[in-house]
C-alpha cells in the first residue's frame, strides 16, 4: 500500500511535470540544450570509434581498388565540369533575358554542409539533429537538402546544434508542383509511420493530369522553400473527398533513413 510519503512524492512528480510542460518555449529549448549536452561526450566517443573503424577500413582497401575509384571520379569530375560550363552559359543567358524583361534576378543558393549527429529516439516524429547551430548562422525554417533532393526544414536551433524536421513529419508541409503540362500544385504532407520514403501530396486539383514517374518540385509558394528543389517522383494517385480533389503518393528523391551529410540553405 502507498503511504503518506509516497503520496507526497507522487504529487511532487505530477506538479514538476506540469510545471515543465507549461514552461515558455525559450526556457524549454534551453533546458533541452543543457540536458542534451550531457550526451556530448558519448556522441564524441561514438564518433571516434566510427572514425577509427573507417580508418581501419581505408587501410585495408587494396591499392588497385583506390586507383580504379580515382579514375572513375576523375571522369565524373570532367563530365560535371562540362555540365557546369553549359549551365553557367545558360544562367548568363537567363540572367540577360530576365534583365531585358525587367524581372527580378534569381538569387544564388548559399549552402552550408553539415553532419547528422543523432536521430529521433521516438517512433512518432521524423526529425534528426545536425551539427550546425545559431553560431553558424542557421535560422529556423531554413531548408535542408541533399544532392538527391529536399530533406526538410530547420525546426529549432541551439548554439551548436539544430533540429531538422523531415519530410513526412506532421510538422513539415511543403508547397509543391508536379512537372506535367498542367503544372499541378499541391501540398506535401505527412505519411504513414512505416513509409519513410513516401509522402502524400494533397490538395491537387480533381482534373490533375498525374502519371507515375513525373517529377515533383517545390513550387516556391508558402515562403519557406525556394522553388525548383526536387522532392521526388509521383508513384500513384487517387480521388479524395468524393472526387473533389486528388491525392498523390510521392516517392522521395532523398533517402531519409540513411542521412549522413546534409546541406542547409542559408539566407543570401
Amino acid at each position, binding site marked *: 500500500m502507498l503511504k503518506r510519503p509516497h503520496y507526497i512524492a507522487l504529487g511532487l512528480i505530477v506538479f514538476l511535470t506540469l510545471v515543465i510542460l507549461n514552461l515558455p518555449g525559450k526556457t*524549454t529549448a534551453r533546458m533541452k540544450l543543457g540536458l542534451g549536452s550531457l550526451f556530448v561526450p558519448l556522441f564524441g566517443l561514438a564518433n571516434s570509434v566510427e572514425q577509427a573503424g573507417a580508418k581501419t577500413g581505408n587501410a585495408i582497401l587494396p591499392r588497385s581498388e583506390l586507383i580504379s575509384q580515382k579514375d572513375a571520379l576523375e571522369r565524373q569530375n570532367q563530365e560535371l565540369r562540362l555540365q557546369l560550363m553549359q549551365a553557367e552559359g545558360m544562367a548568363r543567358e537567363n540572367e540577360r533575358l530576365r534583365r531585358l524583361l525587367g524581372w527580378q534576378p534569381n538569387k544564388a543558393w548559399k549552402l552550408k554542409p553539415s553532419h547528422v549527429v543523432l536521430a529521433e*529516439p521516438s517512433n512518432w516524429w521524423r*526529425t534528426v539533429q545536425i551539427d550546425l547551430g545559431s553560431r553558424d548562422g542557421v535560422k529556423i525554417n531554413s531548408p535542408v537538402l541533399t544532392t538527391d533532393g529536399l530533406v526538410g526544414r530547420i525546426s529549432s536551433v541551439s548554439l551548436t546544434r539544430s533540429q531538422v524536421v523531415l519530410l513526412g513529419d506532421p510538422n513539415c508541409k511543403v508547397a509543391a508542383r508536379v512537372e506535367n503540362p498542367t503544372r499541378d500544385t499541391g501540398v506535401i504532407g505527412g505519411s504513414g509511420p512505416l513509409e519513410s520514403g513516401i509522402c502524400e501530396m494533397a490538395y491537387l486539383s480533381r482534373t490533375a493530369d498525374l502519371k507515375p514517374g513525373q517529377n515533383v518540385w517545390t513550387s516556391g509558394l508558402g515562403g519557406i522553400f525556394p522553388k525548383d528543389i526536387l522532392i521526388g517522383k509521383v508513384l500513384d494517385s487517387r480521388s479524395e473527398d468524393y472526387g473533389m480533389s486528388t491525392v498523390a503518393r510521392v516517392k522521395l528523391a532523398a533517402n531519409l533513413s540513411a542521412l549522413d551529410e546534409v546541406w542547409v540553405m542559408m539566407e543570401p
Partner: protein
Amino acid sequence: MNWLNTLFILVAAFLAVFWETAFQGVRHVLGAQVDLLPAIMVYAALSSGFSTVCLVAFFAGLCFDSLSANPLGISILPLFAVGLAVYFWRDLILRDQSFAQMVLGFGAGIACPVLSLLLLLTTGRPPQLGWGTVWQLIIMSLGSAIATPAFFLLFEWLHKSLSHAPVFETSFRPDREIRRGR
C-alpha cells in the same frame, strides 16, 4: 547498497537513451525503434524503493525528451505511471521468474508509448499515427519484453561484481564436535 543500485539504474537509463538515438539498426530492419526505458522502470520498481522509481521516471523522461521532438517532460508521467503500477503490486509479483519479468516488460513496453501518445494528443501536438503505429507498438513491447529479463541479469551480475560477497555462517560448532577417544 541501495544508493549504488539507484546509481546503476540511472546510468543504465542514460545509456539506454543514448543507444536509442545513436543506433538505428532496429528501426531500419523492423520499422520501429525499441524503447528500453520501460524495461528499466520495471526493474527499478521491482528492486528499489519508491524514491528510485520517482528519480528514474524524472531523469529518464527528461533525458529522452531532450533528444527528441517531444515537448520536454511529456515522457515523465507515462514512465512514472508504469513504475507506480508495478511498485504498487510488487508484493504479488514473482519477480525472480523470467516469465513474469517478460510479461511485465511487455505490458510496460505497450503502456508507455500509448500513454505518451495520449498525452501528445491532449497537448495539441498530433504525432505521426496510422496503421503502422500498431506494428511499431508490437515491436516496442516485444523489445521491452526481451530487454526486461536481460536488465535483471545485467544488474544481478553488476551487484555480484561490485559488492561484497555475503559471509555465510558455517554449520560447524565446536561444542558439538564429536571427540573420539580410544
